[in-house]
């Protein structure tokens, strides 16, 4: 049987943003994100929150293992990697995994 189904798909995805390495900590870590938003959208959102200079890099990781493609939808990441109703994303200023 399938592990997820259309019925219990949440309207918004709760995203928990966690820093890695020397990345600064956010005052607010939990955000409600529309499942159709892309990874790129979250990166840009984070860049604004962290006041990143255009020259600074920012990387986003799932399961502390892989960086999803910037055009991936948050909803599709939540389908496979959501835990306890949340999608945990780690952010880093330098490449942290892989």
């Amino acid at each position: 049987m399938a592990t997820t189904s259309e019925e219990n798909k949440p309207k918004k995805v709760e995203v928990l943003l966690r820093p890695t390495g020397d990345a600064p900590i956010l005052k607010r870590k939990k955000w409600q994100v529309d499942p159709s938003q892309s990874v790129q959208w979250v990166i840009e959102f984070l860049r604004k929150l962290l006041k990143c200079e255009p020259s600074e890099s920012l990387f986003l990781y799932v399961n502390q293992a892989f960086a999803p493609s910037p055009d991936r939808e948050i909803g599709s990441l939540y389908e496979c990697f959501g835990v306890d109703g949340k999608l945990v994303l780690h952010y880093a200023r330098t490449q942290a995994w892989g």
Partner: protein
Amino acid sequence: MSAISKKLWEGKLPVCFELASHEVDCPTEPGMLYLMVARTSYLTMFSQQIEEFFNNYINLKQKDEVWFEYNGSPLRWHYPCGVLFDLLCNPATDLPWSITVHFQNFPSDVLLRCPGDNAIESNYMMTLKEADQIKHKGQVISNMSRNQHMQLWHGIRSENFDEFWTINKKFMEGFEGLCTFRNIPVRVYFQEKLLQRQFAAEETTLETALNNFFPNSFSQDQQTMKVVIQGISPPLSSSLQWLSENLSYADNFLHICVHSIPV
């Protein structure tokens, strides 16, 4: 390593690359570049060869990164070539596959940029890591050496079946002593959209999986949509575990293209 894996690995698409006519900046016609493209490859692997072929015919001052288009759709280079073909083409009428080459007006709202070979390798490795997270909690890939990772990529680049599969077979082992994977990584492409889910291996068939994406659209006697995996339409009763072991792409995802059948 099954005979099916070998056959799929050798699957190639004849592609005709043609420069977009409004980008021709030369009195002589550039002609067309014909290549046999492996289903497991990525389009931007051929960028350098394509650029060399068309470089004398374009306006170098307006030149941007090369990108590809078919029938009005920009082609996402980070999907395997076989997936793009199954998604957009009809093998009965659309061969050779005629792809338009562009060096201007890069559609950065639709396509990812591909700054070079490292970007293609990185995209492949990240997708493979994602698949292994689903199949074995990432245990197989994290136990491999950097050399083994490089061998996988080199095997794809050089289209060397043995080099690739000597390493890739480890991803086809069951999870922690089981005969099946922990879960099966599946990507479904439907109407320009990528949908991704994972499925428990036991008793899941292609039909169960597809009905999870498209409720009540698939059954043995009534089918409103056509399914293509690696260029073929497998029976809906096929076990998803078997399909994952035999019809996955090099990134270890089972990529399923779904088309509406016109009524």
